[in-house]
């Protein structure tokens, strides 16, 4: 058991878990037909059936409660302010599964030339309100009240000491919905992680429906009709947001060190944190020369790489792999889409570089721009 916990601790480290999750993600939520074939071959589509759902929930919830037998795990998840976050994650799982189940159901119906579940006769549009809707709304309201009352009895308000400007808690954590951003601060300069990326991620996710304006799949759940955009959306949502919240809430302990789920939050834990700028890497290590004094010259390699990332790769993809997509989208939509995608990609790329080559900043112009 100890060994298993140890392995889980090791595997949960973002270096491993993020990579695994990022790769597995595209098999579970295939963005292209090729991935979709793999998805079927691996039978991952069965996750979105009732049985698959039961299995999925049993694994996650069962694993969670089994883990609470571990005192270190329990100490963190059972903190009154963490309980709602845990509940929220279960909720995310359930609704994700439910939406996917409906989408997959519809895909099957469509494949066999049936109408989707949500289909209504356009000539007779109606929604049953009384008593159906009103009644279940009442039931839901009463249940919510009861749940809140029981909850407030069982868990006292997680009040802490009076706020004191001279004493910051360790770890100092943002509200849970910002923990993803706080996690990004590990890898990025504050104004990128705190301002630019959140704006890009939120607006990017919001913009997706306006980029993909195809009429298929509109008005009902469907996956395969718009797999690319759903997959990209979920990537941004699940990996760049929810995953980072999980890490930030449950696995970042004192001094913002990473702690596995069964690891004790030891305030004395020490991890080597020496990082190196890309400029030093190229000039000193590869070219074996001192760093140039001129900042632009010094950072030129990073700037060039960044230029390639944003200005060269998208057109290149447009004329090769994404040729069809490009012609469907047109110039403007394609450009917006690629800008958002490449910006979103910098996050995992940077994380990956940090873990592999201890990269501090690709471009480091202190006071101006650090990436």
């Amino acid at each position, binding site marked *: 058991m100890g060994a298993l916990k140890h392995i889980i601790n090791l595997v949960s480290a973002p270096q491993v878990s993020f990579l695994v999750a990022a790769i597995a993600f595209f098999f579970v939520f295939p963005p292209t037909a090729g991935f979709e074939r793999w998805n079927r071959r691996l039978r991952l589509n069965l996750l979105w059936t009732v049985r698959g759902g039961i299995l999925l929930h049993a694994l996650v919830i069962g694993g969670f409660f089994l883990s609470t037998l571990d005192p270190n795990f329990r100490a963190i998840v059972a903190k009154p302010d963490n309980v709602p976050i845990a509940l929220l994650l279960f909720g995310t799982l359930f609704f994700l599964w439910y939406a996917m189940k409906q989408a997959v159901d519809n895909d099957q119906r469509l494949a066999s030339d049936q109408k989707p579940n949500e289909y209504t006769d356009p000539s007779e549009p109606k929604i*049953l309100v009384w*008593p*159906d809707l009103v*009644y*279940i709304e*009442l*039931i839901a309201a*009463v*249940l919510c*009240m*009861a749940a809140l*009352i*029981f909850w407030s*009895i069982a868990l006292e308000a997680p*009040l*802490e*000491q*009076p*706020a*004191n*400007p001279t*004493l910051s808690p*360790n770890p100092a954590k943002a509200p849970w919905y910002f923990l993803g951003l706080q996690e990004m601060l590990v890898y990025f300069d504050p104004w990128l992680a705190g301002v630019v990326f959140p704006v890009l991620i939120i607006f990017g996710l919001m913009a997706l429906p306006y980029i993909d304006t195809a009429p298929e799949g509109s008005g009902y759940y469907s996956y395969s009709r718009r797999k690319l955009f759903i997959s990209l959306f979920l990537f941004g949502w699940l990996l760049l947001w929810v995953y980072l919240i999980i890490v930030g809430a449950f696995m970042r302990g004192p001094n913002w060190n990473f702690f596995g789920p069964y690891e004790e939050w030891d*305030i004395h834990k020490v991890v080597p944190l020496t990082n190196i700028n890309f400029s030093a890497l190229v000039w000193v290590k590869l070219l074996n020369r001192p760093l140039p004094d001129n900042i632009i010259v010094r950072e030129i390699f990073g700037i060039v790489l960044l230029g390639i990332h944003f200005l060269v790769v998208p057109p290149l993809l447009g004329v090769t792999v994404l040729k069809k997509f490009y012609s469907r989208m047109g110039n403007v939509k394609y450009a917006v889409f690629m800008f958002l995608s490449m910006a979103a990609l910098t996050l995992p790329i940077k994380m990956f570089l940090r873990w592999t080559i201890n990269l501090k900043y690709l471009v480091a112009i202190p006071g101006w721009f650090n990436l």
Partner: protein
Amino acid sequence: MDNNEQRYYDPKTLNRVFAVTSVIFLASLVAMFYYDYDREWREHQATFRKIDIGSARERLERDQKRLEQAQEYQQLTEALSSARAEQSRTSVTVEQERAELARLTKQRDSVREEMNFEIAEHAAAKYKFEQARAKGAPGAAKLEKALLEREQAAAEKKLMVEQLESQMGERRAAIEQDTATVVALERQLAQLTSRSDLLIRKLATLDPARLSALDKVGDKVRDLPGMDMFNPRYNVRDHQLIIDGITEDMVFTRVPRVDRCKACHMGIADQRFADEDNPHRAHPNLDLFLTQSSAHPMKEFGCTSCHSGRGRGTSFTTAVHTPDSAEEREEWEKEHDWERLHHWEAPMHPARYTQAGCYKCHTDNPELEGADKLNLGLAIVRKAGCNGCHLIDRFNGEPKAGPSLRRLKSKLTPDWAFKWIKSPKEFRAHTWMPAFFKQSNNSDIEPRTDVELKAMVHYLFAESEDRTGQAEGKRTAAGNAENGKRLTRARGCQACHMLADDPYDATLSVDAMRRQQGPKLVGMASKTTAAWLYGWLKDPATHSPDTRMPDLRLSDEDARDITAYLMAVESDGTLTAAVPATDERMLDEVTLELMAKNMSQVAAKAKVHGMAVEEKLAYTGKQMTRHYGCFGCHDIPGFEDEQPIGTDLSEEGSKPIAQLDFGLRHDLEHVNYAWFEEKLKDPRSFDHGLVKKPGERLLMPHFGFDEHEREAVVTCLLAFAKPDSELKKALPRTPRNMFIEEGEKLITQLNCRGCHVIDGAGGAIEPSLVKWVAEHPPGQEPAAEKEPEEEEEDDGWGDEEDEAIDPEILARAYMPPDLTGEGAKVQPEWLFSFLGDPASVRPWFEARMPTYSLTGEERNTILRYFSYLDNQKFPFEKPVTVDTNSVEFKAAEKMFSPAVMNCKSCHVVAGKTPEGKTAAEWAPDLGMAKDRLKADWTLKWLLDPQTLIPGTKMPQYWPEDGPSPLPDLGADTLRQCRAVRDYLFTLEEE
């Protein structure tokens, strides 16, 4: 319309779901009420009510038994019943009068009501008329007429009321007259039964057995869940204290301090509940706390001002109680579902550290009455020199705890110093010098620490001034050790030093610590030379200008004898450590390591290479002396302006727990006092298991405190908390308080209480004195050999039967004077010059007040201290002028004579000693009175010596009440006393 039966859901199913949902919701509401109602205080208040009823019943029963047995009560009841019988015989008239009174009252009420209407109408009419006249309205005249009518009507009614009331008065007087006897008797009886009546009234609202059926129902209903929002019997509101003027600090703001502790601790301020179990028990010290007459009334201070904890909490856990032991913790967890609320910054102190709370206000009293543990802790902190390494605000400016090492060379040998520092307790088990070496985190690097120690000793001796040969020239011959032993006892050495056969108490006390002001005087021979010791005894300042050892003004012969004795007393332990040869390789290593702190490794290497061994020792010695912070306690050349090396402890008690490094110790509870306890138990234990270079290891030395001492010190550490400005103001910084505080500091430094009782505390020498007197009864020794101590006073004696007296009482006669009330007693000028040159008040005693080299300012500090302590007008006294031709003077002369009071039979007068008495029985020279004593005090002293100095042998000539036994001056006690006092003030010293 039901034809369209298209449905998403089956209505029946929905109904069922809704039914289940409703039941769940109902259950949640019931649970909500239940948990809101289920409070500990409710249960405690119900239990307390039972206890209260029981106690009231018991008292009522007792009181009624008392009444039954009281003759007066029997007589009164009988008298009352017969008076009542008498009255009922005449009852016809009384009844008629009463009926008439009732009729009149009814009539008056009705007329008065009419009168009130008229008055109101009149006021309205007046307003209308005034307005009309002011505006010049045409109807004004008519309105004026209406006004006058109203006035008339009101006056008439008023008159009628008055008439009726006067008739009523007549009736009342008549009734009173008829019932006078009965009422008077009833009143008498009521006085007798007032206690019972009170109890009955109390029980009437409290005791279910005395409630009416309806009240019984109400008693239950008012506390039912849901009903208890109106006027419940059991509540918190009635028991909470909102403390005026002492608020709580919430960082950004201060909020009122609201203490709800009494909601459970209902009997806390009532002595009657002293034997109940918690939470109903009374406070253990109601004389000092909570009661209105105590120094800390509950309404002014509340509970949490002293105890900390969360006053607003109404459950066991949320009040933030703190268990005193692991067992108590377990018990609480089981019984009260207790858990530690980490987020409350000021939890209650565990019971054993309660006295830390006193320090919130009483930061400046060196000794606080009733806070023994805190006092002991503060004394230990001072004595152990904690403030040498740790800044502690209140100890700023205190002298260093250890002796000066500037003139070490003439006293010790380097080898002895090495062995001593390495393990001081081997030499003196109770020494206050702590152990730095052979500790749990450095015994593995002994070769290195030996080199460090060697280097330090080298440095100390190299820097030391050599005084050998000074002040010892006159030591011509060896002394008499036997006489030396006697002298050490007789001269009062035991006020500050333990001697060979003095036992240590099982537990340390502040008083015991006064006797440890200096080291235990054993094993001198293995430590120093007779020459040094002789010189030291003759004049301590030669060897250490700042020493606290005073000059005892010893004759050469006495000093020689004492030297001989002290050199002969063996130590109770021996230093076993061997002094190794200097390990040069290790020395190089250490020197290099130290050197490399200030320069590059390469440069340091080169430099060390070029140094001689001596140089390396000197360099390393100085660095290590700094490293270990030796200068914190000792005056060491080269470290005059050094800053203390330790953590600032001024606010240690408020330090967030995260700042206390528990290292790898997971066995300790994560609370500050557990950390402090462990730190004192094994100061290095938080290093265990960590990889640390020698120079990085924890340094705090081991003091070898036992549990009792650790508790006292931890109490202090918890007390050293962030100051609360409001609580600080509880004790105002008046000149009186500040002068007394300043004086106390100096008196503590000089250890005056080693000999004297001052302000009710001190006189630590007494046990040694009792022992000495028991072993050497005064009768058997030559007269010149008695034992009192220093300084002034008339503690008494004069009477003959000394031999048979219990040594304890006899010792009191030999005790140094009790200085309580000294400010009222002696003249400031005298005290000032006495402190500079303490010529003994009883020069014929061996024990004497030693000479302290006090500056004028220090002497004034002591003067001010005594004066303010006794609320004296400071500083000067009007001299007493005496007319030697007056009747009073002649009478006094007569009273003073052998024929009457015979003062000379005990008192020395102008150098002439009393005849036929041993020196032990002589009383001070009356010739000194004029310059020394205050006139008011002397008068009081003559009138009633025992009140001023309990146990004095000075007889009381004038009885407290009743006429004077002497016929002179009209047998007027006060006049006679005044005359004797004035006469005394004319006597001259030799």
